[in-house]
């Protein structure tokens, strides 16, 4: 079975059917469709981080670099006034991001723990200042994407990216695929070695595995997916800004991932929806939303051990 936990299966069968039907209820209000879309995009980003932090034990505070890169890369390689193919450019962007991740990963994975947090932050900050300081990339004002890609495969087009509902389904599909992808990855031989490394690096080395290679591969995969999320984010409103690469973006993603339950993968979706949902409700309710947000975060750390997913599992799993 792809999902070995009952909680995970319940989540899967509740979340995806609901998400599939949601636009039918919201057809009148394009904003909520867009809002849910952007939460799903960020959930995809958080999920890629969750794999890295929770599954591989590689804590990074520089993941936003790839998120921003996804957006800027599209602006760089796509012609300005011509609709390119979405899938082809998805491939390009993921490949370029993977190449960048390969080089940076090669450097940062020599460190571990808090030192890795800080060295990933260092690279992300360099990228952040590179984009905010250069006039060619629009500086702090950012850039506009004028023409969105078309999505045909062999002449058949399923999604019109200018239609919010279509874009919603594209992002839902992406989120679904990413979740399934990570589940397959985790259950594969590769994933088992990664788990073993997280559990006990010394022993895994003794078994003859080159743990550096496995970590590097994981870093590359997560970074490419992070860039894909940034690419989707950029396409949603056609706007790229260096603040996408700011350390606060990495920080928020980390918060959502911890909140959801580290390493559970599906927890990333839970964490993102809970955090973004609370943020949305509170900021519309009171100007002092930060006070309540902070208090709720503190309360949730105290109450949930191992995040929301962890607490749900404690409640729902049969004790054997």
């Amino acid at each position, binding site marked *: 079975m792809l999902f070995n936990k009952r909680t995970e299966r319940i989540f899967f069968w509740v979340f995806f059917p609901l998400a599939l039907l949601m636009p039918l209820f919201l057809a009148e209000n394009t904003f909520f469709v867009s809002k849910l879309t952007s939460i799903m995009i960020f959930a995809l980003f958080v999920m890629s981080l969750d794999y890295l932090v929770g599954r591989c034990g590689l804590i990074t505070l520089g993941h936003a670099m790839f998120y921003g890169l996804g957006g800027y890369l599209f602006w760089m390689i796509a012609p300005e006034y011509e609709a390119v193919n979405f899938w082809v450019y998805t491939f390009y962007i993921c490949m370029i991001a993977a190449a960048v991740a390969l080089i940076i990963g090669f450097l940062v994975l020599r460190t571990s723990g808090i030192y890795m947090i800080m060295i990933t932050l260092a690279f992300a900050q360099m990228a952040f200042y590179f984009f*905010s*300081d250069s006039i060619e990339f629009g500086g702090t*004002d950012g850039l*506009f994407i004028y023409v969105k890609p078309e999505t045909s495969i062999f002449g058949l087009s399923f999604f019109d990216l200018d239609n919010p509902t279509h874009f919603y389904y594209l992002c839902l599909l992406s989120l679904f695929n990413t979740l399934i992808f990570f589940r397959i990855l985790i259950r594969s031989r590769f994933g088992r070695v990664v788990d073993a490394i997280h559990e006990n690096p010394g022993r895994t080395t003794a078994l003859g595995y080159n743990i550096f290679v496995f970590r590097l591969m994981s870093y590359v995969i997560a970074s490419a997916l992070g860039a894909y999320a940034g690419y989707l984010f950029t396409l949603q409103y056609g*706007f790229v*800004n260096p603040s*996408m690469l700011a350390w606060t973006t990495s920080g928020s993603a980390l918060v959502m991932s911890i909140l959801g339950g580290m390493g559970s993968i599906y927890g990333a979706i839970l964490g993102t929806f809970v955090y973004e949902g609370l943020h949305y409700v509170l900021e519309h309710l*009171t100007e002092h939303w930060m006070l309540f947000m902070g208090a709720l975060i503190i309360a949730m750390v105290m109450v949930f051990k191992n995040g929301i997913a962890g607490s749900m599992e404690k409640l729902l799993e049969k004790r054997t």
Partner: protein
Amino acid sequence: MFNSNKMRNALVAAMATLTLSSPVLANEQPIKVGMMLPFSGVYGALGDATRNGLKMALREQAAQLHGRKLEFIEIDTEARPERAPEIASSLLNNSEADFIIGPVHSGVAMGMLKVLRGKETVMIVPNAGAGPVTGPLCSPNVFRTSFSSWQPSYPMGKVALDKGYKKVVTMSWNYGMGKESLDAFEESFTAGGGEVVKKILVPFPKTEFQAYLSEIASINPDAVFVFFAGGGAVKFVKDYDALGLKGKIPLLGSGFLTEGTLEAQGPAAEGVMTTLHYADTLDNELNKAFRTSYKAEFGKASDIYAVQGYDTGLMIASAVNQLGGDISDQQALIKALGETTVKSPRGDFTFSAAHNPVQNIYLRTVENGENKVIEVAAPALADPARGCKL
């Protein structure tokens, strides 16, 4: 702590949609004013002042609204550009705001613009100076009641030349507004034969200015021209004084250097000379009345950000009045707004074809903790609106 008005409005709106079966006359619905301003963080003070001014004007001008009620939707942008398109889309598609007021930060302005250009709402920028807003990206439904970055700084070049300064060092944070301000100063200063001997761009939001000031002291130019605002402006002016440059090398600036910051800067700001589209001591009745009632209501001195918010309110009220309270025709509304002469505390101003104010720029100096007007540095100055086809 919870905004009870907001809660009540939300409830009323919800009940209205549930119970009303007969069509409502457009004029009986409230005019929805969405605000996208920073209410927390580094730019929080600017957002607060803008909102105060805006609400004050709309309250004073209530008679002009032809009985239309107002509904405010206020969202904290946190000055985060990447969130701007989403918040703008929320105000446009969810709240269906008639007016969307914002932002303070230029990056946020660009994100809003991407979503709101050419849409069924009117966007009014009460601060952000980003050139493109009323330049290459100008749009019929986008107005600005503040300034383009070019406007307040351009006249200072001539002022500097008149004072006999030939060699000047310019300095600002390395971001859009700062760079545009320095360029505007340089444009008029070098055209008149001046020379910018060094241009210093400080990474945003760094406020360690000592190293730069030591270097400026060693260059010893005729004057220094800077753009800084808010907390950075406070720190810069204090450092300039503490390191002994004040009184030896004249400090010139875009007026934001001494707006909303004078109390924190204290005596260090005395004598600093700036150009801006407003000055505290402007001698007109409107300004005096505005300053008195602002001080009475909010317990602190008003600044340019409050004036800009206030003028945004005046502009909306005047257009609503002209249309007899019916703002459902967007074309008519845009026309009315564009033709408004805003009777502002800064002096009357009109709008250019690109929807940017055509306004006086004043030369001011700080005296006894006030921006005192010296003269009009450039009368009825219009932004060149490079790239705008309106």
